[in-house]
């Protein structure tokens, strides 16, 4: 029996991603009277940061925008993900009830970022997890009361996760921040000009004070022992051995740029989508906002979302927003500079360290390969179930031959969805 043809919906503006940036974009575009559809993989709005606190009505920025979003006329497709872009201005979306094509005038990409994982001896052991991961697992019910956790990596996520874990009853034994004390200090002084950020930093500091963050330190290797994970930490010239139930590492964030690449947007270093001052990407019907254009936090996402929401619907872009954007982009650059990974940390893997976890490809197997094609033919690196989501950014960071190219589907989807045909 022939499959019933896949339905096609149309809109003026399609927003991919319902985090802070996508919400601001959708609200602003809808205010012009444009027909707006927002698609997000998750079952509720909010993205990485606003989603999980929805039990109580939220205050501040989150509360304002979530309230605004619930009041505007936007078609909301939660639990739906964009899996392919078969033609310009046409996207294939999969939801719980099947596939749908969405034809759009403009596309605003707000797909956010994910954690960067780095390989070091032992990183594939169970209970060695991401820093954002242990936070997410705790929010979804993991009981960390009395568990000893070592946090390691770089960036503002570490103190945020430390505070979260402490609140959940964990014993955070050590926080290793690879950035030097000098860099952190310079960054701290930079915050003096931004009262909001400084207040945030202060609150965090008060909450985690019982353990200090140790700058200039990083994990060297981890192994299983009778007393849990045995973690070796490099701290300046000294090495310490510590024991823990969990080693949670967060070395930074990398953009979820697969959809952007699929529709042809130019990406720059670090994989960030290149945009102009109104967040227009290199493809004329596409805008990119939020973490996708540079890691800068919620404020940057909200400002860029509003700018793109206006620009995509031919509304005049508020000059104040453009000024705020310039400041946010500067802050993002300061973050990137402060928490740039030192060479020692990028090169922790030894010859026997697994780089591609899905296919167990070790570093030794990757040396001497010329390009992405050879990589694929000889090693299967990046061809496992995670579709290079974990090892792709690692290859890039290690300067190894190219990340495998982006192909649809960019998210796991049903075969039936892939077979969907557009009826002209």
């Amino acid at each position, binding site marked *: 029996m022939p499959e019933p043809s896949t339905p096609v919906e149309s809109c003026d503006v399609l927003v991919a991603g319902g985090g802070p940036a996508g919400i601001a974009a959708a609200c602003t575009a809808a205010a012009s009277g444009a027909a707006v559809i927002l698609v997000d993989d998750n079952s509720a709005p909010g993205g990485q940061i606003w989603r999980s606190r929805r039990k109580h009505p939220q205050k501040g920025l989150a509360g304002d925008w979530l309230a605004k979003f619930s009041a505007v006329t936007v078609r909301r497709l939660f639990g739906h993900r964009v899996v392919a872009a078969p033609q310009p201005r046409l996207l294939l979306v999969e939801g719980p009830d099947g596939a749908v094509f969405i034809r759009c005038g403009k596309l605003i990409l707000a797909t956010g970022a994910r954690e960067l*994982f780095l390989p070091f001896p032992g990183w594939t052991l169970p209970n060695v997890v991401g820093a*954002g991961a242990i936070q997410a697992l705790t929010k979804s019910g*993991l009981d960390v009361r009395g568990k000893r956790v070592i946090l390691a990596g770089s960036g503002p996520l570490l103190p945020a996760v430390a505070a979260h874990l402490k609140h959940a009853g964990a014993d955070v034994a050590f926080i290793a921040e690879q950035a030097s004390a000098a860099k952190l200090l310079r960054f701290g002084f930079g915050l003096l000009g931004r009262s909001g950020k400084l207040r945030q930093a202060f609150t965090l500091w008060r909450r985690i004070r019982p353990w200090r963050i140790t700058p200039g330190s990083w994990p060297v290797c981890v192994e299983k022992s009778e007393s849990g994970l045995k973690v070796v930490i490099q701290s300046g010239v000294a090495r310490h051995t510590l024991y823990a139930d969990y080693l949670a590492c967060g070395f930074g964030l990398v953009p979820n740029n697969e959809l952007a690449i699929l529709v042809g947007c130019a990406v720059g270093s670090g994989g960030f989508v290149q945009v102009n001052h109104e967040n227009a990407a290199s493809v004329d019907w596409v805008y990119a906002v939020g973490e996708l254009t540079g890691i800068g936090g919620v404020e940057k996402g909200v400002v860029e979302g509003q700018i793109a929401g206006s620009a995509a619907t031919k509304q005049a872009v508020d000059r104040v927003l453009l000024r705020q954007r310039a400041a946010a982009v500067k802050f993002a650059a300061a973050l990137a500079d402060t928490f740039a990974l030192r060479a020692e940390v990028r090169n922790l893997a030894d010859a026997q360290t697994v780089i591609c976890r899905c296919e167990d490809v070790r570093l030794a197997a990757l040396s001497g390969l010329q390009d992405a094609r050879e990589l694929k033919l000889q090693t299967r690196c990046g061809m496992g179930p*995670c579709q290079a989501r974990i090892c792709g950014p690692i290859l890039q960071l290690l300067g190894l031959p190219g990340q495998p190219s982006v192909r649809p589907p960019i998210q796991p989807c049903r075969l039936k969805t892939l077979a969907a045909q557009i009826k002209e």
Partner: protein
Amino acid sequence: MAEKISLLVNGGKITADAGVSLAAALMNAGFVRFGTSVMAEPRGPLCGMGICMACRVQVNGQRGIRSCQTPVREGMEVVLDA
């Protein structure tokens, strides 16, 4: 107090609070190794957010279910390392 539900893991019964993710329930019950890699090394959840696929288990006969993205349900039959 959260409502308790029970599930079967590798044939044994465990209990969990209703509403938690399957990954969290399994870890709370003491499971550390969720599966093995192609070279038979033990693996467990890494990303906690549906990206790495390291937390996949078999649920009610269906393989490859990401436990970090799956809420627990009463009577679920789970197989680790299937």
